[in-house]
């Protein structure tokens, strides 16, 4: 099968800088949220609340970040002929694995006595909402070229 596209073109999708920035900004917001929820958890539920807040926020941020990370990993195969298959395999496979791990964690932590599950739930919800807010802010502020596979002046790096 012949490929009509020019050989010299860089086929890396233009989404990479946006996703990378979302992960970076998400990490910063997560650090802030971790401190806030840990303090609130400790104030309202003691040491168990502190542990629950830390675990809940970490779970939310890590599991929400895995999607962007899996797209970034999958885009490394952009020059491959099997890119489409590899891309959706990696992204959706990562998604499935993430949910299996999440459900296992929830079942394991449900009966744990060293953390407060209510605080864990609340900080998990807060982490999920904060992560969504970061994603939306990054996307609305992003500037992306319309094309991925032609030679253009260097794309804005956002760094």
């Amino acid at each position, binding site marked *: 099968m012949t490929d009509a596209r020019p050989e010299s073109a860089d086929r890396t*999708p233009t*989404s*990479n800088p946006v996703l990378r920035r979302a992960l970076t900004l998400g990490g910063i917001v997560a650090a802030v949220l971790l401190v806030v929820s840990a303090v609130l958890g400790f104030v309202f539920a003691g040491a168990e609340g502190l542990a629950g807040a830390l675990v809940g926020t970490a779970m939310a941020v890590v*599991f929400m970040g895995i*999607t962007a990370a899996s797209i970034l990993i999958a885009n490394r195969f952009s020059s491959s002929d099997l890119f489409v298959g590899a891309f959706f395999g990696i992204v959706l496979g990562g998604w499935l694995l993430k949910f299996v791990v999440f459900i296992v964690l929830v079942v394991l932590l*449900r009966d744990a006595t060293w953390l407060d599950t*209510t605080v864990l739930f609340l900080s998990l919800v807060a982490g999920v909402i904060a992560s969504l807010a970061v994603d939306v802010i990054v996307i609305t502020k992003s500037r*992306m070229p319309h094309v991925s596979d032609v030679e253009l002046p260097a794309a804005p790096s956002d760094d």
Partner: protein
Amino acid sequence: MDATTVLAEINGNIATVGYGLAAIGPAIGVGIVVGKTIEGVARQPELAGRLQVLMWIGIAFTEALAFIGIATYFIFV
């Protein structure tokens, strides 16, 4: 005990059904998001980057509900 009561009897926690529902919804949602992205990229491969970002935000919003739904296991007895 009459027959209706015996037939309708279930054991265990009814909240378990909710966790199943929390998994079905996002599965359908992500399936639609990804399927439409494949359609879009097939029509216009040069838009792959932009479509990837839209797919990513779509997946993020869809899975957010799943995380919250499954995590209610922590608070619902």
